[in-house]
């Protein structure tokens, strides 16, 4: 839009110059530290868990303690100290060349921002189960929902939340189910549908739900949106990355899976002279 003098109308940006408008909170010296309406030091420190505050910063409201405890358990399931896992591998490589622990850990977290594993998969996982439930409640059968999804992927079981990479079966789901039971959560509509879909995939393909499918369905039942779950899981792999960094850091440099020249297979152009 142009103003009357023919110049661009920049009033919106002018109003933002030099001023921060925060929807979250902040530290006002002498007044306190505020977080979504809570006084952090008075209301939260020693009273809420770290995971409750993590969720408060994502959701804008303080969730009940048991849900934060469940998310914390899910975090434990999503990171373990095995350097063969891609993000952890990066942690170990970082240790072998002596980066800082922070650099190694955030590099691993960044690597897990992947469409194959890590927190980003929840975007598709939640989208799938929430769309599937909408179809189910519009009277589609579970068989039809599965058939349509298979058709989209030319008959392959490429449904986000099912068919775990590297392995059949996912022992983490059983562990999280036990946590959910202990905390008093019931199976909701999303999770029940997730189980029903799993039963068909198990029957026809021998494939089962993976942790992405379980967490996506469970937290959908708790009212989470896809982006919220993604944001709550930003650091879900870091403890394992840090562990693998430390393991390599405490060994001699370049001792983690060293490569000889011929350990890389060259398939390119033969040696040639510059023109």
């Amino acid at each position, binding site marked *: 839009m142009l103003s009357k003098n023919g110049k661009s109308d920049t009033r919106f940006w002018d109003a933002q110059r030099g001023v921060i408008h925060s929807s979250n909170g902040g530290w006002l010296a002498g007044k306190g530290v505020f977080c979504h309406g809570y006084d952090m030091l008075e209301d939260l420190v020693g009273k809420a868990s770290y995971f409750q505050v993590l969720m408060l910063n994502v959701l804008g409201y303080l969730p009940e303690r048991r849900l934060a405890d469940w998310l914390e358990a899910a975090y434990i399931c999503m990171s373990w100290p095995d350097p063969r896992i891609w993000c952890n591998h990066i942690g170990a490589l970082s240790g072998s060349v002596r980066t800082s622990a922070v650099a190694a850990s955030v590099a691993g977290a960044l690597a897990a921002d992947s469409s194959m594993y890590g927190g980003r998969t929840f975007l598709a996982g939640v989208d799938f189960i929430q769309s599937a439930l909408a179809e189910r409640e519009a009277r589609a059968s579970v068989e039809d929902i599965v058939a349509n999804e298979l058709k989209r992927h030319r008959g392959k079981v490429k449904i986000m939340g099912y068919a775990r990479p590297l392995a059949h079966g996912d022992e983490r789901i*059983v562990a999280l189910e036990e946590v959910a039971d202990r905390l008093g959560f019931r199976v909701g509509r999303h999770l029940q549908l997730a189980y029903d879909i799993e039963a068909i995939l198990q029957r026809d393909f021998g494939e089962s739900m993976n942790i992405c499918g379980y967490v996506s369905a469970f937290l959908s039942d708790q009212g989470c949106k896809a982006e919220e779950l993604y944001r709550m899981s930003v650091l879900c792999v870091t403890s394992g990355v840090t562990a693998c960094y430390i393991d390599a850091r405490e060994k001699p440099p370049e001792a983690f899976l060293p490569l000889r020249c011929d350990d890389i297979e060259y398939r*390119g152009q033969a040696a040639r002279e510059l023109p």
Partner: protein
Amino acid sequence: MTRQRVKVKRRNEKFVQRTATRIWQEQASAENPYIAGSCRCHGYDLLELMSGRSYVDVLYLLFRGELPGKDESGLLESLMISMINPGPRHPATRAAMNAGVSKTDPVHILPVALTVMGGSHLGAGEVEAAMRFLRKQGGSDPGTLASELLQNPMPEQGEDWCLAPGFGRRFGSAERLPGEIARRLAALPGSGAGLRWGCAFADALAAQRLGWLNTGVVASVLVDLGFHPRDGAGIFQLLSAPGLLAHGLELANKPVTAMPYVDDEHYVIEKR
């Protein structure tokens, strides 16, 4: 509901025994298989490239597999100069400066800034989409396409508008420099259909105060040079890296007070 414990077994995918590359060949030295005695990039000896070709030529070789001709090399070098610094107001540069002034370990300044430069608005995350847009629309009439896209509802006042990947407006106006850079690049002998089409498209948008964005300029040159869209994001980050680092380091030796810190009077906590 807790089900029975599942039996977990590996899928036994067949992973390769060795990673393969077409880019780089390291020949082991005679005395130690871990030490390279020579390196070749797509068949050319690295030491010969050092003395015989420019940095820009070897950069092109790395990604395209062949050395560029004089025209391609000239186009890429001009692009690299034009994009060498996003400038001190770009959010990625500000991130570098913020890290520098707050005494972040200097080894982190560039990764921090490049991460911010990965955004999908004015950043690397937009370049692949812009390359795909240019490749897909390159055969269409730019004026007709512009008219069609302008039928879409405009955003609220006070928002940047990206009409198509790589084309839009910032702060209520078309950017001037990207348009001028694109015009000069299009005049070079190495330029091709991507730049020409983009210039015509930008001309068709000009009356609506829309035009080239830097992301679109980079995308069009990379299309003309035959790069794959998947290469676009990383190369855009690479092109901007020198300026990001220079600004970050400039602040690294200054006191923390060398950048503004918003005081409490200008920090507004909004009630939801």
